């Protein structure tokens, strides 16, 4: 690998910026009751559609303004981050475990295992993912665990396809052959030799998938199918903002910025981690 590429793809500022934003949102979500300036559910019709702090008519303590029911936007975003991050971590890890395991098996063992797993992936790819997610949540019932399960059921293929291809490449390498000659078992080789070499890809995909899970959760709560309507979610705030867009643009703008930064951070963070952990690039 030439040096120019390592320098250009260096993990430096990208990793810190993306990681910093994610850490900020994560900490705010964990300590939401302490850092949120207001009760995210408290309605006050005297305070409806207050603008953000730099505009005329803003109230102190309501930094990003309020929605049409007088609820504090910043507090709702902070509490919405809780749902977003729980879904991001749980769904991405579940999808990763299932997808990577199947991908590793298909790629390393090949033959019938590969044929069957690949056929299932083909079937999964024939579903429009958003519609599949909405359908699954409708069938499983709304709620946090349904959302997580639905995302994992749909997105394991993302891991499976990439890891299968990588494991296939790795299993043709000399070192795998050497390990076999040295008398290691096939499962031992898969776990001890192949897995560490595909791990950077798994880590990058995991981070990417967290961003995707955040989006899917937002989409589900946008169509009112995520968790109960009382709890603030980013998608729920966006749905509210889409309705009152001409009266209170900030109700759409702030959750949108939050979502875009979070999704970009997850994908950049994953890329940067991959560069850092890649045994070849490192």
């Amino acid at each position: 690998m030439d040096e120019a590429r390592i320098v250009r793809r260096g993990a430096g500022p990208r990793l810190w910026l993306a990681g910093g934003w994610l850490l900020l949102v994560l900490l705010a979500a964990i300590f939401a009751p302490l850092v949120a300036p207001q009760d995210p559910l408290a309605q006050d019709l005297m305070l409806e559609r207050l603008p953000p702090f730099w505009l005329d008519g803003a109230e102190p303590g309501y930094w990003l303004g309020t929605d049409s029911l007088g609820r504090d936007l910043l507090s709702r975003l902070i509490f919405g981050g809780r749902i977003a991050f729980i879904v991001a971590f749980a769904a991405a890890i579940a999808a990763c475990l299932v997808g990577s395991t199947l991908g590793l098996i298909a790629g390393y063992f090949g033959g019938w295992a590969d044929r069957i797993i690949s056929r299932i992936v083909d079937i999964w790819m024939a579903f429009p993912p958003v519609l599949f997610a909405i359908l699954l949540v409708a069938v499983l019932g709304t709620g946090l665990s349904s959302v997580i399960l639905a995302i994992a059921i749909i997105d394991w293929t993302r891991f499976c396809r990439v890891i299968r291809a990588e494991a296939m490449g790795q299993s043709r390498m000399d070192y795998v052959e050497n390990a076999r000659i040295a008398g290691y078992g096939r499962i031992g080789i898969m776990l001890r030799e192949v897995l560490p070499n595909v791990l950077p890809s798994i880590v990058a995909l995991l981070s990417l998938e967290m961003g995707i899970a955040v989006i899917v959760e937002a989409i589900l709560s946008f169509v009112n199918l995520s968790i109960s309507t009382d709890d603030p979610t980013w998608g729920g705030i966006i749905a509210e903002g889409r309705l009152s867009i001409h009266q209170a643009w900030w109700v759409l703008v702030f959750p949108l910025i939050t979502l875009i930064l979070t999704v970009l951070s997850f994908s950049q963070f994953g890329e940067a981690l991959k560069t850092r952990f890649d045994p070849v690039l490192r």
Partner: protein
Amino acid sequence: MLLQRFLIRLLTMLITLFGVAVVVFVVIRVAPGDPIAMMLPPGATDDDIARLRALYGLDKTIVQQFFIWLSGVVRGDFGTSISLRQDVLGLVFNRLPATLELAIVALIMAVLLGGTMAILGARERGTAVEAGIDIASGAALSIPDFLWGLVLILLFGVLVPIFDISGRVSPQLDLPFVTQFYLFESVLRLRFDLTWDLLKHMLMPAVALALPLAAIIAQLLKQSLKEVLDLDYVVQARVKGFSETQVILREALKNAALPTLTLVGVQFTFLIGGTVIVERLFSYEGLGNMAIDAVINRDLPLIQGIVLVFALLFVLINLAVDMMYALLNPRLRHG
């Protein structure tokens, strides 16, 4: 060779569709709630319930039920929508043209935008222009269509309200159309006032769908072009006195386009999948918007129908791309 490849693909496609049918059937049957109980008025006797169960084949084993259901689907009998009380297939075909028009307009935009960026980036390789294109396509790729849709609503629906952000066509207009392909038909009828109105409604959702795909095309095609531009025959063309743009358009493009073409086919199915939420966002009356309504109303027959039609569309596109690739790839053509 080609025919053999086609037959193998056709067979895999049928297996995939069968698998989709199994998954849909299982998912729908897992749904809590007795479908029969929902159909009957309160106070129905056990006898009534048993009779209705037999009528719908629900007293048979699950495997028998599946094949009864599947034989209906194969004959085009997708059942009756519970919420709209109409034939499912009719409803789906009524909405499908709107979604196809949106997806195709988005695809054309993605190819034009991505292609232009790729050619520009390849021509200006190594300069700030290429770096700018890389950053722009990186951002366009990382942000999904749902968020692009919201950004566009804010920019061109609120900040500078020049495009419509809701619906497929202005409701006050008198529509002379006999098909559901409004855009296509408005052009054929030379009613360009209607074409313009339709395009004004379609532009924002289409851009939201097109941006991520345009980014992929820009990145991949630029890479392929840069590789081809160093080959001998391209260098010869340059020696003959063609300008760099001419070299790219006349010599390099047709050889660099093949990998992009394959990828665009696969990505086009993702774009169609994206119409579901983007149509919702822009209240565009297509299949995806109807699908979300169907889920909210727990209209299971309608959901089944829509999912199966989407799946059929996806595998057909993949088949078409695969065949196109085989036809265009000289190695496979003469193999």
